[in-house]
């Protein structure tokens, strides 16, 4: 149905439609997705910086991302943005509003924005988002920003798969520091206090500094709405990325991200077989779900043995 060669050629030519189509094909798992991913320019992917931006709802992630994009454009860079929003667990639908803050770049061909829903996938989101990022990088985007509310394991995985991770917080959001301490603080390379002109910002900075110093991390103050602090933040991102590349940290992270993605894809590929087995035999309600799962996985492994 899709002409993959033409699309791959379009990506190389930095054509908007081809990049957009390619991301859909990969996200929907359409035929040709593998051929497409296999034909991407790995050299471009290798050098493109992937920045993960996460933080509590209302911290100003999309406003900040928009400013970073603006700054990158001033520097003459071609930029990609993947904005992730949750799908409704009930209907499976989603509303993406990040575009509203990105619309100033709508007419700029050098800014590629894509909204992506979590689609209720346990691990597969990480895989799809990773593939979307690679399509953008192969289409000449460097850097690529990936923006998500950092809750839930799969979103956490995405963030951990980035080259550089920025955790955005803002004063007045309540007990966020306490909540964030659980995980995100540990993986963030950079902590950003946005809305730094609002009451409570100094206190928040102090608290974050405490955590940051222990781990040798830095805290940045920004007022994204007024475009303040953006330049310093981005120049530190670049500096950190180049340090990480020299020290081998970057290669280590990418390898880890790759392994995580492979596991994700594998799980996604197994899912239909598990579903089928789960529904095919009459399920004895007396059996504990975990024991039933064990039976199913053993059966799958056996099937594989008999085929191999």
């Amino acid at each position, binding site marked *: 149905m899709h002409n993959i060669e033409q699309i791959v050629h379009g990506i190389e030519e930095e054509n908007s439609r081809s990049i957009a189509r390619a991301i859909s094909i990969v996200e929907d798992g359409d035929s040709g997705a593998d051929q497409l991913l296999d034909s991407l320019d790995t050299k471009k992917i290798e050098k493109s910086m992937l920045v993960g931006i996460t933080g509590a709802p209302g911290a100003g992630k999309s406003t900040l991302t928009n400013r970073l994009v603006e700054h990158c454009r001033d520097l003459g860079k071609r930029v990609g943005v993947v904005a992730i929003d949750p799908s409704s667990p009930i209907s499976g639908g989603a509303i993406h509003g990040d575009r509203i803050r990105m619309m100033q770049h709508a007419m700029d061909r050098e800014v590629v924005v894509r*909204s992506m829903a979590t689609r209720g996938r346990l691990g597969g989101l990480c895989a799809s988002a990773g593939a979307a990022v690679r399509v953008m990088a192969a289409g000449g985007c460097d850097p690529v920003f990936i923006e998500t509310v950092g809750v839930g394991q799969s979103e956490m995985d995405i963030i951990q798969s980035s080259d550089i991770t920025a955790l955005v917080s803002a004063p007045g959001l309540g007990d966020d520091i306490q909540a964030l301490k659980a995980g995100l603080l540990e993986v963030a390379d950079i902590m950003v206090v946005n809305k730094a002109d609002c009451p409570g910002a100094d206190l928040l900075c102090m608290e974050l500094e405490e955590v940051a110093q222990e781990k040798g991390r830095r805290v940045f103050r920004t007022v994204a709405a007024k475009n303040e602090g953006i330049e310093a933040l981005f120049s530190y991102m670049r500096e950190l990325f180049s340090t990480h590349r020299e020290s081998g940290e970057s290669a280590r992270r990418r390898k880890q991200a790759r392994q995580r993605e492979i596991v994700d894809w594998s799980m996604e590929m197994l899912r239909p077989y598990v579903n089928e087995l789960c529904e095919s035999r009459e399920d004895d309600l007396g059996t504990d779900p975990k024991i039933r799962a064990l039976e199913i996985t053993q059966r799958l492994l056996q099937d594989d043995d008999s085929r191999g």
Partner: protein
Amino acid sequence: MSQKKYRILIGKPGLDGHDRGAKCIARALRDAGYEVIYTGIRRTPEEIAAAAVQEDVDAVGLSSLSGAHLVLFPEVVENLRKQEADDIPVIGGGIIPEEDMPNLKEQGISRVFTPGTSMQEIINTFTEICEKGAHA
């Protein structure tokens, strides 16, 4: 292993700040299982078309209550055509007089909804149009 979900862009072209209708439709479509991208108010037809291309949507829904639909809706279609994306169907809705309908249809607007249209009918139309596109 296709996990196709239909994606729809809801846009508000022109100087019209009344977006309760657009948001209402966006929510209804989400609840019907669609992935909806909302552009926010006061966008130009060029911006809406460019966003529709980047998001690779299956259909575009435009809302206008200001009376400028005869100019703005066809301009979105025209801008999609310029980007070789006129296979993306465009649907319009808002305060639109009956006598404007033939004109809009002629200029490439697939369907037009007015305040009397039920939500179910709107959802059904989007479903029908998206499915038609997918099999084309």
